[in-house]
């Protein structure tokens, strides 16, 4: 896309507050933007996770240290968020693949599949959260 031409300042109503609280995003829209947000989040943590893997394999001491980090309260919280991000990204991605194949493109199915992606993602995250808290 070419750089925006500003021959006349055009009114824009896209403040963060407007996007979050005033403009109503339909459910498929939420699934889509969360797909992007989760993707960014996962990219942000991938190196950290690789370093954790390295530490856990380096020695028994490293293994215990990683286990301790992930067992701490902030560690479990971080793990939960990463798990949610991965699960949502995965499920929303599969929904996109179905849309690529032309399945579920009509409004009714687009809305129901969006609801399913969100619900299943939260459910799986809750199960993992329960297992992490035990």
């Amino acid at each position: 896309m070419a750089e925006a031409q500003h021959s006349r300042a055009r009114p824009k109503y896209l403040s963060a507050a407007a996007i979050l609280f005033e403009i109503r995003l339909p459910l498929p829209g939420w699934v889509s933007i969360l797909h992007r947000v989760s993707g960014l989040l996962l990219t942000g943590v991938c190196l950290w996770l690789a370093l954790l893997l390295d530490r856990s394999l380096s020695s028994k001491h490293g293994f215990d240290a990683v286990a301790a980090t992930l067992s701490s309260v902030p560690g479990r919280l971080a793990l939960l968020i990463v798990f949610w991000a991965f699960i949502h990204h995965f499920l929303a991605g599969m929904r996109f693949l179905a849309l690529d194949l032309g399945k579920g493109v009509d409004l009714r199915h687009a809305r129901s599949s969006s609801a399913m992606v969100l619900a299943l993602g939260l459910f799986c995250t809750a199960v993992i959260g329960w297992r992490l808290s035990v």
Partner: protein
Amino acid sequence: MNADASERALMHWVIQRATAAIIAMYTVFAAGMAVVATPIAYESWTALFSTATMKAATAIFALALAAHAAIGFHDVLRDYVHRPSARRVLLGAAYLLLAAFVVQMFTTLWS
């Protein structure tokens, strides 16, 4: 490459889906292991990553992840960052991060 914009776009589209499939397969395997084999002891953990098969699969997974994330990042930046110089800088930073991720994974697996 001499691919024009539409050829590049199609290539991105295909690579994004193909790498997603690779990531999905590895994830299903990892999730299965998490269900049946946790909590895991240090000895079993290192044994898991000592086989050539696991190392190769994990390496392929890491490469697929990096390619998938790079294309995704490119798409996101293209949509939200409109100044080309800023976009190039952010994209370069993402590529650097993903390259570091791949190098780190390979180092972990084979050293």
